[in-house]
């Protein structure tokens, strides 16, 4: 038999401490002393509250006694079932520490082997335990990593029965579900595992492809995207500054939610639109300073967790209604700003300048280029070239990281945005690359480099 360690992991019988009656009493004693001290501080108490508190204490005592009795059961299956029942009962006493303790004991029992314990029964019990733990928010505790790890180690054993290569071939969730059903795999178990995986800081299953995730790239992309989205779509700004919209909202009697609640709704919306909690967590921590507000946001997430896709969409619509905005305003397809359009135009102009010079070097350049690009192989090749260029760019950023520290590339990326903004504001426009692209144009236009450039390019002889 194994017993739970205080932190993460297990130790064998005799190596650790068992929860004896003495220790239970000792704990009760400690709790009593605490309670007494509290009582002294607040001498005048509401009699009704006192009564409730007394009942609660009595209930805790009963449950602890039950727990001590369950511990004595030798059959792990019996113990798991009883602990699970006890876990349900702990909801009434509002004592997270104790609930957490029972959760650990339940999981510990589930980890043990027993002859007449069918795999399906075990999985079913697991699912119920996790469901209950999630409903009672028992994952927002220090030991969540431990809980997840333990469950995953068990789920992995189950999941390995499915050939991952076959699963990968399924294109949609529906297909993968069908495949799982065809393999007589416990759907609930797998879904629970997927669900839990997406709530880990480092998920090991991708939500869309259901492939294992080995790097954090996707998470980073989503976080970056969400940050940008929040910056650019601050729900407060457009409403407060848009008189017409305010009038419409007033006319249609739509309630407005400002300040903190607006953010609460934004996060709800992001979550309902499919961004997982672990990806939103850093953003929440950065944006919301008030603990109570963070809790509100997390509470919302817990309420949304078990919703089906269509239900999530309905909830999202409700949130949108609160803002009095149309759905389009909250789609993740960001509309291009005028400045960006301008920027694209200028990039194209720079390219065209180069192109014009190339045309001079070969009068049939345009036609040849057209013919070449009509070839599907060439298109593929261009896409491949683009991908390679992107990889090289990423490597260069990494090389800058090595030389100048991890923060440097981020700084460059930020500065690039600033450059862009500054140039656009100044009416110069040109992106990123910004100034360098601009430099080419400046040089071509104004510093007499144009001739030199044309000369140089004409010597290059691009022959298609």
């Amino acid at each position, binding site marked *: 038999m194994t017993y739970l360690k205080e932190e993460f992991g297990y130790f064998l019988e005799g190596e650790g401490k068992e929860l004896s009656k003495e220790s239970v009493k000792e704990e009760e004693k400690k709790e009593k002393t605490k309670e007494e001290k509290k009582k002294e501080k607040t001498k005048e108490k509401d009699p009704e509250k006192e009564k409730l508190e007394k009942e609660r204490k009595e209930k805790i005592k009963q449950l602890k006694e039950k727990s001590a009795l369950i511990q004595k059961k030798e059959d792990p299956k019996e113990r798991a079932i009883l602990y699970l029942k006890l876990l349900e009962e702990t909801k009434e006493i509002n004592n997270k520490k104790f609930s957490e303790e029972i959760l650990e004991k339940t999981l510990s029992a589930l980890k043990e082997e027993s002859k007449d314990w069918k795999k399906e029964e075990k999985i079913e019990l697991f699912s119920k335990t996790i469901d209950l733990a999630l409903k009672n928010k028992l994952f927002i505790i220090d030991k969540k990593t431990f809980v997840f790890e333990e469950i995953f180690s068990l789920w992995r054993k189950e999941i390995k029965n499915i050939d991952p290569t076959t699963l990968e071939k399924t294109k949609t969730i529906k297909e993968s579900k069908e495949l799982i059903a065809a393999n007589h795999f416990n759907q609930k178990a797998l879904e629970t595992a997927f669900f839990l995986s997406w709530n880990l800081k480092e998920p090991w299953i991708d939500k869309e492809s259901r492939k294992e995730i080995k790097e954090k790239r996707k998470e980073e992309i989503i976080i970056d995207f969400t940050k940008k989205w929040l910056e650019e779509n601050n729900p407060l700004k457009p409403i407060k500054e848009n008189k017409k919209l305010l009038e419409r909202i007033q006319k249609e009697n739509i309630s407005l939610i400002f300040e903190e609640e607006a953010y609460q709704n934004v996060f709800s919306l992001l979550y309902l639109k499919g961004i997982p909690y672990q990806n939103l967590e850093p953003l929440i921590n950065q944006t919301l300073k008030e603990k109570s507000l963070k809790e509100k946001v997390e509470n919302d997430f817990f309420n949304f967790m078990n919703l089906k896709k269509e239900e999530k969409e309905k909830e999202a619509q409700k949130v949108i209604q609160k803002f009095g905005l149309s759905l389009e305003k909250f789609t993740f397809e960001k509309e291009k700003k005028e400045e960006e359009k301008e920027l694209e135009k200028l990039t194209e102009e720079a390219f065209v300048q180069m192109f014009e010079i190339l045309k001079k070097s070969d009068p049939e350049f345009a036609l040849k280029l057209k013919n*070449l*690009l009509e070839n599907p192989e060439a298109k593929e090749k*261009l896409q491949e070239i683009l991908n390679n260029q992107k990889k090289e760019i990423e490597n260069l950023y990494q090389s800058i990281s090595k030389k100048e520290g991890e923060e440097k590339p981020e700084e460059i990326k930020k500065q690039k945005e600033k450059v862009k903004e500054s140039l656009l504001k100044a009416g110069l426009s040109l992106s990123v690359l910004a100034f360098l692209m601009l*430099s080419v144009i400046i040089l071509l236009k104004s510093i007499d480099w144009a001739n030199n450039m044309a000369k140089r390019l004409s010597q290059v002889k691009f022959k*298609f």
Partner: protein
Amino acid sequence: MSDNSLNFLSSDSKNLLLKIYEAIIEKITLKMYNNLDEEAKGSFFKIILSGSEEEKINFFQKYFSNFKPLLIKEIEKLVEELKASKKPSL
């Protein structure tokens, strides 16, 4: 200008070429930035963001004079790669 010159290309091809063009410029910029000395690195964004036109031109002439040949080299490379993808008519 841009509308007329590239109109013979399909929008897919045009977008792809523009993306490659941007990527090439970003790559060259980063390569050159990576090779700058510490002092120049320090001035890089400062001058771009708040320097005068003259300062900007001077800075690029001093530190980015290789930009043009590198760009040409990259375009040549691109052309060669494209040529390799379509054998018969090149």
